[in-house]
């Protein structure tokens, strides 16, 4: 921190200053913690202050208001400017204290008592206390605001209740015990009451904090605060001087002075910018671009962070038949509803080729929704059968299908009435990876005699078909869990769920195994111990593997790249992949490669 002489000089000056100003100022000028802040200690590699980080965003954020933000760029920027009570550490995938320094869960699992760090201040210098927390949750839970977070805060059908105990303690009351209770708080940004209460009471909160807001009207508890916004070009954030973390040496985080978000609309343009050195970090890379960049690593290193949480799958239309459906539709629906049919398709798919050709090896074949990236929840016992055409044909024979030879030498699969098996797979036209997967599957299924057409649809038309009109045969889609906990995807597995893709929003479970999955998911929702929940969820995974409503294909690795001078760069497999520890990133002064 400087030589002994400097420190002495500093002390002298300080005393002189105190004497001078004691009568004039209401509070001391000392730079140490005047408010007795309880800061969080960062135990990783300490870095040095200074430097600017330049990043690319796929599109301009639409807002800086956490209550309204639904699109990804907005959430990414807001995530850097705001903080939550309990945070999920992206590297360990476990919860850790954030604004709340500790918490207690009552024995019945219904009451969570959180103790806040005292003495913390917002980025504009105003103090933060329990009133802000209560106000925050009041806003999120307000029905007239339609905040996207509201749905997350409803447990057991009822919104959680928030009560202030004292200035640094808040109590949360749940209607039913919730196994993943602590994880509820991750991403719920604590809002400044001193700025937002007035617009909230006037009913104008949803329009507040657009991108054009002047910096002094914004406040948050995140590591950075807004410095300037240039429409169409960039968004610049600067260090929040009141950030509540320090490193082991006592230096207040974040290390970086500034973060620049540039708006670069296409993936290819982002690759170009990164390659030319204009941006420092690149994430959400496709495998092909990753290869291109890996070939010439000049001053930067490309990292394969390992399997992510995205899982891609093929699913069939298992909805009930609409009235007036044609005989052809009825026949196809009957094929799809046969478990052996689906198992046969699963046995015929060449997952290794998908990993090789679509992800260029940077991916893993999966047979269930939990990818190897989720190391806590993955069920090791699920079978991973390799591709076996013979097994597939055998299953089809058992299901009543038979295979014949056409004149051209291709096999044709026919059902028990002699009708050849033909159907279409729809997929999103804008996602090149899934299109490729669908084309590979089409070729695979040709080997067992099925004639498949791949129909790329515009994404919104695709969604319309799958969720609304239910007018499709099969579909290749992918989903990326935003958390490793299975509750984040619960709407997929519950038969009443809106994203229960193969037969959404059922009033009663259509099959016995779906009913069983419903029961199990409800059970693990309220179970409190991890071991118990895991056992239940393993059972769910096994049911999925047996009945194959979704034929799981592959999961891409998280591919990122960063300049060598960025220290503490530890990409994670959960979003935000590279920025989750942005307050720890710093500029190395050696600049040498880390290999």
């Amino acid at each position, binding site marked *: 921190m400087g030589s002994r002489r400097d420190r002495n000089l500093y002390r002298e000056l300080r005393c002189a200053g105190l004497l001078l100003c004691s009568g004039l100022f209401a509070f001391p000028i000392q730079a140490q913690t005047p408010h007795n802040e309880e800061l969080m200690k960062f135990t990783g590699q300490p870095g040095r202050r200074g430097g600017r980080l330049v990043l690319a965003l796929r599109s301009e954020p639409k807002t800086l208001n956490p209550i309204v933000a639904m699109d990804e760029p907005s959430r990414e920027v807001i995530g850097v400017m705001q903080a939550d009570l309990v945070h999920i550490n992206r590297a360990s995938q476990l919860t850790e204290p954030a604004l709340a320094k500790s918490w207690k869960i009552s024995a019945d699992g219904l009451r969570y008592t959180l103790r806040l760090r005292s003495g913390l201040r917002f980025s504009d210098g105003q103090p933060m206390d329990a009133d802000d927390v209560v106000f925050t949750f009041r806003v999120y839970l307000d029905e007239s605001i339609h905040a*996207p977070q509201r749905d997350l805060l409803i447990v057991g059908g009822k919104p959680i209740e928030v009560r202030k105990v004292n200035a640094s303690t808040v109590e949360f009351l749940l209607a039913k015990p919730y196994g993943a209770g602590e994880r509820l708080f991750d991403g719920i940004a604590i809002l400044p009451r001193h700025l937002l209460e007035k617009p909230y009471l006037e009913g104008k909160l949803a329009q507040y904090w657009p991108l054009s807001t002047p910096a002094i009207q914004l406040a948050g508890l995140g590591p950075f605060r807004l410095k300037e916004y240039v429409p169409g070009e960039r968004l610049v954030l600067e260090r929040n001087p009141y950030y509540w973390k320090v490193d082991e040496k006592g230096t207040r985080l974040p290390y970086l002075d500034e973060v620049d978000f540039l708006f670069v*609309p*296409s993936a290819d*343009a982002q690759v*170009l910018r990164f390659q030319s050195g204009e941006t420092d970090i690149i994430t959400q890379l496709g495998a092909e671009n990753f290869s291109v960049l890996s070939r010439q690593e000049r001053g930067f290193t490309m990292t394969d962070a390992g399997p992510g949480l995205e899982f891609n799958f093929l699913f069939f239309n298992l909805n009930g038949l609409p009235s007036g459906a044609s005989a052809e539709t009825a026949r196809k629906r009957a094929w799809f509803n046969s478990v052996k049919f689906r198992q046969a398709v699963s046995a015929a798919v060449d997952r290794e080729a998908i990993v090789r050709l679509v992800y260029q090896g940077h991916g893993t074949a999966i047979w269930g929704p939990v990818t190897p990236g989720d190391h806590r929840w993955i069920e090791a016992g699920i079978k991973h059968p390799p591709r076996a055409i013979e097994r597939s044909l055998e299953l089809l024979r058992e299901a009543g299908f038979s295979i014949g030879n056409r004149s051209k030498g291709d096999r044709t699969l026919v059902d028990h009435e002699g009708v050849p098996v033909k159907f279409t797979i729809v997929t999103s036209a804008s996602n090149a990876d899934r299109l490729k997967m669908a084309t590979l599957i089409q070729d695979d299924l040709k080997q067992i005699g099925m004639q498949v057409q791949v129909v790329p649809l*515009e994404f*919104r038309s695709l969604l319309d*078909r799958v*969720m609304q009109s239910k007018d499709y045969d099969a579909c290749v889609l992918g989903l990326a869990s935003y958390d490793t906990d299975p509750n984040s995807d619960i*709407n997929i597995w519950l038969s009443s769920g809106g994203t229960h893709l193969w037969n959404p929003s059922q009033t009663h479970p259509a099959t016995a195994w779906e009913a069983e999955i419903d029961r199990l998911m409800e059970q693990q929702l309220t179970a409190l111990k991890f071991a118990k929940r895991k056992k239940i969820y393993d059972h769910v995974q096994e049911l999925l593997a047996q009945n194959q409503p979704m034929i799981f294909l592959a999961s891409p690795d998280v591919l990122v790249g960063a300049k060598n001078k960025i220290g503490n760069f530890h990409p994670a497999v959960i979003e935000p992949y590279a920025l989750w520890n942005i307050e720890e990133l710093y500029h190395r002064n050696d600049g040498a490669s880390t290999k």
Partner: protein
Amino acid sequence: MRYLARRLLHAIFLLLGASLLTFFFTALAPGSYVDEMRMNPQISADSIAALKAQYNLDKPVPIRYAMWLRSVANGNMGFSFAYDVPVGPLLLMRARNTLVLTITATLLAWIIALPLGIWSAERSGHWPDRTITWITGTLLVIPDIALALGFLELAVRSGWFPTGGMVSIGFDSMTLAEKLKDLGAHMVPPVSVLVLAAQPLLIRHVRAAMREEFGKGYVRAAEAHGISKKRILWRYALPGAANPLISLFGFSLGALLSGSLLVEIVTSWPGLGPLLLEAILARDLYVVTGGILISTVCLVGGNFIADVMLYWADPRIRKKETAE
């Protein structure tokens, strides 16, 4: 004057018809922007219904068209679902980018094509004519898409030009000279493609028009009188050929907004073309209708300007009108 009034009315009729057609086409397409929100399990059905109502997507199509027409008359072209901004400013900004490209390209194309066409017509049958015809023939057979992709490959391999986009990062902080240089470098591939693609048509038409004039009696008479070639060209032949040339120029003007769609998409130039493609794929109704409308306005306007210029330049048209 009546002639002009008639042409103006004609233009307005075309615009109305175009807007009707495009609005109905896009409105009948399935799927809408809010469907994407449905895929996100965090967002409830209520929020989505609220959004749908906010954008008026639940009213029948003719009413939506009427509402849109009324707001356009007020200068408000609707709201973009995807970008969450009013359509007008969005379109204008992108149109400005397109115009930067196409105005440069059109000017350059004409500056190159006019002298070449005239030269080719003068030396008809000799080697300048033959070379030029050969070159334009070659250019004509290379499709736009091959040219654009070819230039992109060249840019990527040689590194001489940036491979896409309009400006580099940090454009705002550059000096004026640097800005011009940066913009210029980015413009080279798309402008080259547009200029090259336009040459064959322009040169051939110019040549044909000039040849026709050169063959006429009064030019021969002027030659016989010993008037210099230069004077004949500037004072006699060119004004005579003005009619088809001005029509051609009107056509060039009209294509300012719509002619560069493919080139913009391939070179990632942030103009009207990529915006429209994106909006079509995203079913962003008002952007699509707005985009087609302004490019139709440009097309119709270009032809109208050509009509005005013709009226002013060609006394025969004025004569015809007074004779009617």
